[in-house]
């Protein structure tokens, strides 16, 4: 048996039931619908950025159904023979055991063009299977997955916000009886950028190091290297070649994060006309991103990626040389810092907003007037402002 220390925390603390799965309510609902309607559709694809709980969700489904999981990794899915050997018997033998089964094909985007046989056999399996097939993937929008997408119910898992991650980390700390400074936990949560697994891994390392200053060293490293290379390619080359078209394939980040990196660094490379052109491309890419959200039309991602890569590259006429020290996106951090600084202002605004039947946002916007009105002690009492809030108001007269 393994000693507890030897199990990675992200495995040890995997969730066990739907209600423990944080931040993915919509996906959970969709899964329940799928199970209810099974076998109308035989398979689901859980897709989303790394560490958002795809595999966890699959295991939760199994435990809720009291089913046995037959798991295949991308690395197992190398060829037709292998798939036949593993899946086929499993999907056809129904009543040998009493337990129901779930076939889990993890990380299907690992199947490359070379494994075409594997993909078509997977499709056949879905046809024939008498058990639900669960497929997980980071990016399901490659053309080679067209057929697969048609056969399956698509369920998207969203990036987890940092507060949810923070709560999770605090919980794990309690269970592991380790003490980590809350600031460090917050910093880990923010840095994880929606990836729970990365956050838990970082926490485990930090808890051993017991050196909060080392938090900066953990994680992020690989992510940065790959985005640096891609940025360099986009900003230095004016030609659009095959590599440019798929420039972000190798970058281990979601597209929103890539947006921030490109945004931050455009002015370091481009001036005047090029600058205007590049930001125009970025702006239209963002418009497509907005359309994807509002209309749920994922086809538009093609344009989003194109404008973000080749679109930015084509803003200049000639190749350029030289080395540029690309910067990390700073906007999100600034917003976060500002929120920390304004925490008191916000709690005041929440109270004022409730009292005056307006939104907190509106109260924040009106704060220059509101704070003058709140000089009045009677009104402070009516809003039940706390001593720290009053102190904030007196300080910011």
């Amino acid at each position, binding site marked *: 048996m393994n000693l507890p220390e030897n199990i990675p925390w992200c495995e040890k603390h995997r969730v066990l039931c739907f209600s423990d799965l944080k931040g993915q309510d919509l996906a959970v609902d969709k899964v329940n619908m799928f199970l209810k309607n099974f076998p109308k559709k035989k398979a689901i694809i859980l897709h989303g950025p790394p560490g958002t709980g795809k595999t966890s969700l699959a295991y939760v489904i199994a435990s809720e159904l009291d089913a046995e999981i037959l798991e295949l990794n991308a690395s197992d899915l190398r060829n037709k023979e292998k798939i036949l050997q593993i899946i086929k018997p499993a999907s056809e033998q129904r009543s040998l055991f009493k337990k129901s089964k779930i076939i889990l094909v993890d990380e299907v985007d690992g199947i490359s063009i070379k494994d075409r046989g594997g993909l078509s056999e997977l499709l056949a399996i879905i046809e024939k299977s008498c058990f639900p097939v669960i497929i997980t993937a980071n990016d399901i929008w490659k053309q080679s997955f067209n057929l697969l997408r048609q056969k399956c119910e698509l369920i998207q898992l969203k990036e987890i916000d940092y507060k949810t991650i923070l709560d999770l980390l605090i919980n794990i700390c309690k269970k592991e009886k380790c003490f980590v400074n809350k600031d460090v936990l917050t910093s880990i949560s923010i840095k994880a950028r929606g990836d729970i697994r990365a956050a838990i891994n970082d926490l485990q390392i930090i808890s051993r190091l017991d050196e909060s200053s080392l938090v900066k060293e953990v994680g992020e490293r690989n992510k940065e290297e790959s985005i640096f290379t891609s940025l360099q390619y986009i900003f230095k080359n004016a030609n659009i070649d095959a590599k440019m078209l798929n420039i972000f394939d190798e970058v281990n980040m979601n597209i929103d994060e890539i947006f921030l990196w490109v945004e931050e660094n455009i002015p370091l490379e481009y001036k*005047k006309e090029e600058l205007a052109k*590049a930001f125009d491309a970025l*702006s239209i890419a963002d418009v497509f991103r*907005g359309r994807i959200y509002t209309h749920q039309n994922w086809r538009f991602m093609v344009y989003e990626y194109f404008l973000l890569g080749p679109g930015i590259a084509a803003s200049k006429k000639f190749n350029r040389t030289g080395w540029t020290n690309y910067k990390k996106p700073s906007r999100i951090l600034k917003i976060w810092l500002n929120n920390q600084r304004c925490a008191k202002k916000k709690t005041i605004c929440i109270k004022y907003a409730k009292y005056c039947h307006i939104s907190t946002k509106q109260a924040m916007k*009106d704060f220059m007037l509101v704070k003058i009105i709140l000089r*009045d002690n009677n009104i402070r009492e009516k809003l039940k402002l706390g001593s720290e809030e009053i102190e904030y108001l007196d300080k910011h007269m």
Partner: protein
Amino acid sequence: MDFKGSDVWTERYRPKKFDELIGQDEIVKRVKSLADSMNIPHLLFAGPAGTGKSTLALIIVKELFGESWRDNFLELNASDERGIEVVRQKVKDFARTKAMGDVPFKVIFLDEADALTREAQQALRRTMENFTSTCRFILSCNYSSKILDPIQSRCVVFRFRLLEKKDVKKVMDRISLGEGLTINPEAFDMLYEFSEGDCRRVINLMQATASISPNITLDLVNTIVSQAKPSDIKIVLDYALAGDFLNAREKLLDIMLKESISGQDVIKAIQKEIWNLPIDNDLKVRLTEKTGEAEFRLVEGSDEFIQLESLLASFILAGGK
């Protein structure tokens, strides 16, 4: 007033009966007749800020339920809780239980409903149907175009108009009388101009000004207004026209964060500022067009700041240095 002692004036002087509401006579007449029949359909109030949407909703429930209005009324603000969770949890939980008293339904007021995501609106639509027998919805929004058609078709839509100067005057007179203020005419004009017909804003301005002195003069108003105005967006544009993108960008973000203003507000300020810039007329026209395009994209897109940066880049180009 029933008691002495200060209060927030927007609340103290919030109209409590139909005939106290100023500037929306037609709407009040129709809504009143609905309320008198002790039955209302779902309502959608569309119109600019500070024109009386929330006030009318509050009057309706007070008329319907009398003393027990608090038990039968749920107020939510969609811009604070814009996810699908609001609709699913709070609304459902509230709509599920029976109304207390004589009126057979409860009322949910969903303020700033145009801030709800599409998903949430879809969910809301079903909820509205499922609980019609026990629950009525009053939705308010600035732009009815941002409300899904199927929701609009389930509501009676009322369009609130901006308050005219004479309406704003009435509101201010009522408050001056209640608080014992004197407001000289130039001060009144300034207050009105800065409020842009937004009643809540004008009342807040009055209260802030009166906190210094009950004799409100133009100078006094100017002091308060200059404090309350969003920081000069001109500094950002100056940087941009001088070709300094990085500083323009940084300053812009600072202003937006510090003063909690939205991208829309920034665009509005830029659009007003262009005509004061030291540049050629044809350039002003082109930049105004760019600003309009940026505002359009800002509504369509997902990240306001990127759209603003793109606009700043146009200013850099116009600066030509």
